[in-house]
């Protein structure tokens, strides 16, 4: 699985404005609902919030990978978001979260969903790569960086 299969160039938010966990989830979910009209924003956010209740998806090092399954989406869709000032996402290491990769999967695709989670978490593992992402100027550069880093594996 390649990251380009999940992430489209128009699914990148270089400058997340929200200051709260729920606000970030809404901002990340919005592009999906704009593209797939059958998905209601409040329903998708509720799915994501349900998952966050099991423990934050902010796994440390400034990364969060919120995720969930919802009916009506044709395939796994990712949204990448960056918050320059950082958000309190109740991360496991207690530090603010800057880089977000939202993954939304169809109800039945359990194993692909798991593979995508593994892929994304490995993609964001390198500290130097994360620094590059923080320095990128616009969404085109972010997309290029993600694609290049993904191609290395």
């Amino acid at each position, binding site marked *: 699985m390649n990251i380009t299969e999940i992430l489209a160039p128009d699914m990148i938010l270089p400058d997340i404005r929200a200051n709260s966990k729920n606000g970030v989830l809404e901002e990340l979910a919005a592009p999906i609902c704009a593209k797939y009209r059958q998905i209601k924003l409040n329903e998708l956010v509720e799915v994501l919030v349900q*998952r966050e209740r*099991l*423990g934050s998806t902010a796994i*440390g090092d400034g990364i969060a990978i919120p*995720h969930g399954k919802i009916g009506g989406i044709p395939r796994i869709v990712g949204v990448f978001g960056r918050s320059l000032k950082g958000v309190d996402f109740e991360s*496991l290491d207690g530090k603010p979260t800057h880089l977000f990769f939202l993954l939304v999967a169809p109800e039945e695709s*359990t*194993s692909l969903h*798991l593979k995508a*989670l593994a892929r994304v978490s490995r993609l964001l593992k390198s500290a130097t790569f994360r620094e590059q992402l923080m320095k990128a100027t616009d969404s085109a550069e972010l997309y290029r960086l993600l694609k290049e880093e993904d191609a290395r594996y």
Partner: protein
Amino acid sequence: MNTPQLSSLPFLAAICSLLLLASVALSGTSRRVGVPVILPFLGLGLLASSTSLGVVLRQSYHVSFVLGTLSLVLILFDGGLNTPLSMARSFALPSIVLATVGVLGTTALFALCARLFGFSWPQAFLLGAVVSPTDAAVVFPVLRGSGIQPQKRVASILELESCLNDPVAASLTPAFTLSLAGEAPLAAQSFAHMALSLGVGGVFGLGLGWLGRVMAPRIRPAAGGLYPLMTLGFALLAFGLPELVGGSGFLAVYLAGLIMGNSEMPYRAGILRVHDSLAWLGQVVMYLVLGLLITPSHLLKVAPQGIALGILLSAFARPGSVMLCLLPFRYPLRELVYLAVVGLRGALPIILATYPLLWHVEDARLIFDTVFFVVLVNTFVPGSMVLWLTRQLGIESDEPPPPPALLEVVSTRVLTGAKIISFSLEASAAACGAPISELPFPPDSAVILLIRDNEVIAPKGATVLAPGDHVYVLCKPADQPFIQLLLGRPEA
């Protein structure tokens, strides 16, 4: 002393055995009924108080004092061992404020009430100091038995506070007792002395805890069963040494436990289990002793004012003090109410109340009997309300309940590498519905055990994970965040 039956060891053993067995047996019933587990112990002590065991204890309060002190040492050391350092750090400030200013506040407000009931000011303040410490160990078994837990913040503050206020109340009580006995005037001096004693206790506790932490892996006992004796040795040292030089041994023993409990000790699981039992023994002994010290015929006289004062403590003194202390922290009102109500009296007031008896203070007996009722009311009332209150105030935690089975590696060596974590699987976790073979686990991780309902299952690649499953995973600490991303939050 003419108590020939008691000099016979078999008789003493028989009485103690009966009390112990009955306490353990009754604890199950009391948990089902939702009454604090320790209350039956008190009842048993009361029943046995007319036996020669009670007579002897009442003839020499010193024995009770020693038993109680040792019990508290065991309880506080165990409390320290089981306090995660992260929790101590996060909630240190509110807990310390409650344990210091809060104790003084409760003491003063309660003294006000006691004065209204005809106690002299010095007596009233002494009473206040005696009943000011709280005990979380009394309340949490009630909640655990019913499968609900209070939210992390209130639970942590209650637990930390209850360990930290014991040393404070224990330093305050002698100061008030001595002033009442006419030995020393109560002045700013005695408060300075109290601060000094806590400071010295703190330094000794941290130092000896550190020493224990460094020494534990180096002392190589011949058998696993000797490890808990080593930690017990450190606990007694941490109490005794600072006491010799006027420091607070109670604070020291708690801090030493805290530092040793948060280190990689060999035979750790075994050590924790033994200290857990010793702490229970401490609770049983303290409440039995309280019951045994009571002369039932004296009680009736004190009952009305004792019960009234008990109610005033739980409805006025404790809430007032908690509210004032925590106002600057801006916690939601429902949390403040919860903290105020669930500040239960534990076993410590019992030992502290023997202090005036030991010093032959005037009306010491009256003070002791009053304390009995205050403790009784403040264990029974909040204890039977806590379940209802937790639900009513919305303090219920949505954290997973403790796992149905504990899987741990017990070894006399410090083992490194992987550790075992358990998860209670919920539908919204990504791994739910997947066969184990499709979990993209890191190379050094594996699902090693599955508990479905009450059945232990050997996990195979084809086993599909279902909601409600308890999944036990072996993984490297560095991989834990990723495992949690797939499975959710680990069980406590």
